[in-house]
């Protein structure tokens, strides 16, 4: 008898429990899947951002998934989209912007997502040069800038002192860079100057910094009929100078993409133009005093220095999901844009803040005073952009960058003159642009 009662009450209790649990799981959170390409310390930053958002509200849950490098995660998302399984948010690097924009039916513009969820969207709070890259000609924001870096000039202060140069007066112009390199070489330095991401630093950012076109139609913002303009006299002159420096052993080529990044913190190369995002690695690994300065320019070019171009990635919203997911995405993006969140991210990673308020907050907190050089990246970008300096939007940009890598390598190897190499790069790059135009013809 007792056993019977016990069994029955146990059954009743478990039934009640499962009903209660069932009730709470019926109000399950809407999951937002975010595919990204941030590994290591940056991956932890991503996870912390998601956790911060998830803890701040109960309705949505952002689930970040690391999918490999930038192009691996983009390929994965494309395959998933074709299988009807796309994530909600995808982090895409800046060179993939035109590809994403051309896939109009595959993406949902961020501006649309935000306004549809009821958020007031004011473009004026964003830093122009950062946001302009990802904005449509009509002013609609297509993707949310997430981790934007820009090109800066890293230099080894200890090597400067040893060469008799003033460590607090870094070279600001290209002629000064050549002079400094000569002094460094004379003092026995094997690698006075190098660069990473050669297309980004020496052609793309170089162009916007000098308010010169990298490609026609306002660097592609004006339409898919844009063609490369990187063999103009100014670009040729710059590469002639680099070729001379290379012949004299003042500029040493250290490989494609960011292969050269390892040579600066290790002390092998004394000066390097590269990403502002290298700051964290330098701080952790460099055993010497280092400084950050603005990208060098030619003082006789009118309009220089204008602003540099951003690198890094932005967050795109994929099409084909339910409205409540888009509401979650909008809430998450609003959270990411909060000044305190932005300021914390900026100080933690060295990536640019996307709003002016975040920059002000960081400045008022004395961060830039305590960490000199970290504001260089931002001050290069807080300028009013011109039509020629807003950014670059070209299709098949990944191939174009490789073409530039291939052609410029021939210059350093002594196989082509700068004029031949740049002309060849323009010719081959234009083929890619024509193909992109044809493949996306008839689409807006």
């Amino acid at each position, binding site marked *: 008898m007792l056993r019977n009662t016990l069994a029955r009450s146990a059954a009743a209790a478990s039934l009640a429990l499962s009903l209660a649990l069932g009730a709470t799981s019926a109000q399950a959170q809407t999951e937002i899947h975010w595919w990204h390409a941030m590994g290591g310390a940056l991956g932890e930053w991503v996870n912390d951002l998601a956790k911060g958002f998830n803890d701040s509200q109960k309705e949505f849950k952002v689930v970040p998934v690391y999918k490999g490098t930038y*192009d691996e995660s*983009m*390929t994965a998302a*494309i395959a998933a*989209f*074709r299988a009807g399984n796309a994530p909600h948010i995808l982090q895409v690097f800046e060179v993939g912007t035109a*590809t994403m924009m*051309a*896939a*109009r*039916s*595959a993406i949902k513009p961020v501006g649309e997502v935000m306004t549809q969820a009821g958020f007031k969207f004011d473009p004026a709070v964003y830093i122009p040069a950062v946001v302009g890259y990802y904005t449509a000609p009509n002013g609609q924001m297509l993707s949310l800038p997430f981790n934007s870096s820009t090109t800066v000039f890293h230099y080894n202060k200890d090597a400067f002192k040893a060469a008799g140069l003033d460590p607090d007066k870094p070279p600001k112009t290209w002629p000064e860079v050549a002079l400094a390199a000569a002094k460094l070489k004379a003092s026995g330095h094997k690698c006075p100057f190098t660069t990473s991401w050669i297309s980004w630093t020496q052609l793309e950012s170089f162009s916007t910094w000098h308010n010169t076109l990298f490609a026609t139609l306002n660097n592609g913002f004006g339409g898919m009929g844009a063609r490369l303009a990187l063999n103009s006299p100014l670009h040729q002159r710059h590469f002639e100078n680099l070729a001379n420096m290379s012949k004299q052993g003042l500029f040493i*080529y*250290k*490989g*494609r993409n960011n292969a050269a990044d390892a*040579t600066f913190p290790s002390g*092998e190369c004394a000066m390097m133009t590269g990403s502002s995002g290298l700051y964290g690695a330098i701080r952790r690994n460099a055993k010497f005093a280092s400084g950050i300065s603005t990208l060098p320019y030619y003082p006789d070019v009118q309009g220089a220095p204008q602003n540099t171009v951003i690198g890094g990635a932005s967050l795109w919203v994929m099409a084909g999901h339910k409205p409540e997911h888009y509401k979650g995405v909008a809430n998450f993006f609003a959270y990411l844009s909060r000044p305190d969140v932005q300021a914390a991210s900026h100080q933690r990673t060295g990536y640019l803040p996307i709003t002016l308020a975040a920059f002000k907050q960081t400045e008022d907190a004395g961060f830039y005073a305590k960490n000199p050089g970290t504001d260089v990246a931002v001050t290069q970008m807080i300028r009013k952009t011109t039509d020629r300096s807003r950014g670059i939007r070209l299709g*098949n940009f*990944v*191939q174009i960058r*490789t073409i530039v*890598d*291939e*052609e410029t*390598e*021939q210059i*350093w*190897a002594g*196989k082509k003159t700068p004029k031949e190499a740049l002309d060849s790069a323009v010719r*081959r790059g234009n083929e890619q642009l024509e*193909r992109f135009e*044809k*493949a*996306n013809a*008839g*689409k807006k």
Partner: protein
Amino acid sequence: MEKRVRFRSAWLPWALLAPQLAIISIFFFWPAAQALLQSVQMQDAFGTSTEFIGLENFRRLFNDELYLYSFRVTAVFSLLVAGFGLIIALVLAVFADRAIRGASFYKTLMVWPYAVAPAVAGVLWLFMFAPSIGMVSFWLRAAGFDWNHLLNPDHAMALIVMAAVWKQISYNFLFFLAGLQSIPRSLIEAAAIDGAGPWRRFWTIVFPLLSPTTFFLLVINIVYAFFETFAIVDAATQGGPGRATTILVYKVYYDGFKGMDLGSSAAQSVVLMVIVITLTVVQFRYIEKRVQY
């Protein structure tokens, strides 16, 4: 005696074959058919617009001087890899065949590189030869030879050939060793008694009797050099400098997965497939005639 197996039931052979057929269809025929289909289409990256363009992809490929250059690079690369791989493995197998003491020790050392993944092999050799930090490049520079595979195309080609050959020697070595050990000792002894020196013995007796193995390995090595060396190229040189190490299969990967141009990539795949099929057919028809079984 009847050598063929006779099945009395009509469905049992098919049932037994079914798993293998399924695997071949899913992992070979289906992707091959898809590649053929995509090679005559032009798509945007997301597949939202597909346009049938006939042989346009192929026409554009063969008008691209860089694609034709890739042919040359691949031909040079595969000849070097197959040639060095076979010769070095044969020499090592002949030595290992004669070793009496420590034979299994040598054989183990010869064989383990085969277990190394191609990408790992590429990175290994990259580290040894890295112009700034590699040990071998350091010694080369101390000896007066300026190694820089980042800028010198011949150095880059040498690097990937070395990595590819190193990996493949084990495989060739195993087969050559087995082939050598299947040659009857009596033949060699008889030739020695008749006064033939070791060089003569090798060329007139051993090498002809090894010809089935050599032929088989030649086919395998060419296919290896065409396809399985992709990971080595990706890890070591990424096709650079310029285009000096962009073998055909690397270009397929690059155009398809980095460039998102699936039509051109599929067209290149189809061309590669035709090349390797042709090579294999040629090898079987003409060279096999000279093989003495």
